[in-house]
């Protein structure tokens, strides 16, 4: 299982949880697993063309990725952040 850091923008989906476990070998499959448990979450992060949304950031450990095909190991932590933006 991968531990996923949930940003404040998405805690309405996770019942307030800021850390959840999810299964999957890629960023996309982890998001799919999250979406099964927290319906609607994935589409707020990734668009219908599998592009990470402009103002969302995803890190595998300390490495940022914008590819949903990026691979994960069980020991990896997936961190989702809202980008520093807005106003």
């Amino acid at each position, binding site marked *: 299982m991968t531990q996923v850091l949930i*940003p404040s*923008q*998405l805690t309405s989906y996770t019942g307030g949880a800021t850390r959840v476990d999810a299964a999957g070998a890629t960023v996309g499959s982890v998001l799919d697993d999250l979406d099964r448990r927290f*319906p*609607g979450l994935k*589409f*707020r*992060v*990734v*668009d*219908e*063309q*599998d*592009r990470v*949304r402009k*103002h*969302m950031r995803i890190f595998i450990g300390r490495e940022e990725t914008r590819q949903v095909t990026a691979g994960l190991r069980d020991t990896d932590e997936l961190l989702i952040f*809202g*980008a520093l*933006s*807005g*106003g």
Partner: protein
Amino acid sequence: MADKTRLLIGTRKGAWFLDGGSDRESWSPIGPLFLGQIINHLVSDRRDPKVLLAAASTGHLGPTIQRSLDGGETWTEATRPPALPAGDPHGRSVHHTFWLEPGHASEPGVWWAGASPQTLFRSADNGDTWDGVAGLNEHPKVLDWFPPMDEGTPDGPMIAGIVIDPRDARHMYLATPTAGVLETLDQGATWAPLNENVRCDYLPDPYPEYGQDAHQIALSPTNADRIWQQNHCGIYRLDRPARRWDRIGDAMPRDVGDIGFSIVPHPRCEQTAWVFPMDGTEVWPRVSPGGRPAAYRTRDGGASWERQDRGFPREQGWFTVKRQAMSGDGADPMGLYLGTTSGEVWASKDEGESWRQIAAHLPEIYSLAAVPHA
């Protein structure tokens, strides 16, 4: 008056209701709903007022539709919001839904959504799941009508309005910022431009087949053959089956002009409509001309216009009223309401003769709709 009026207000930072008393003098805010979320449009279903949909997004998160089936008491998110197919040949994805329109009276539960980039969606289950309208989204001319590099409007090019002929569910019009008005006679399977004699000041051919910027279109409630249009380049009227628009804004005062975003027809008189002019000179400030806000009313189909500014600031009133932010109620006399980008709500309960501010300090108002409320 059997019903009170509720104003549904969508803003850049959430949504509010503003509930009017039976005299339309006292107004009570309810909200915020969805605080911090961008609510482009908040709409109730004229066929079943308990159903409300909100087009929501945030600065970070992707777009979605929020739904209420109990008059706004509780809300749930759409199971499948508007989205283009994975692998869309033009690489498009929905940035936000801009316009929500309840379907024809003969089709309960049907809703239409106009999105940015310019794409159209349909729901048959009160907004829970949405499907793209292939006849438009995959039209052979889609890249001509909706150029992918065209920014359209500051918040992105969008379907700016959806109008359904009350006599025929198959007959619909779209307002768009890059193809003007489009018409379908088969509920979206095929589309054709409807822009004859509508000017484009910003293209080499000032009267092209398409390319116009239709800010808002509306049918007269008592005459579905009469279409009013507030265009980027003037105020127009078209009486079907004719196809050639008349620039009725030519009768507006020259120092005010006929640029604006909204147009509101009278619920009972096909000759009457209101606009709220914006300064369209030089660099297009899009504020009240001269800093003196005013509505303009025609009572003769656009042959003449009268200024209605009583109650508005006499000077230094730099209102911007966006295309979804002016609305009328069904009362007699009709009430008119508008929301400004500076978060003020202004109301008239005498058909525009006099105005007063009924709310202030809201976030930037994107949309405002007056609906009956028990």
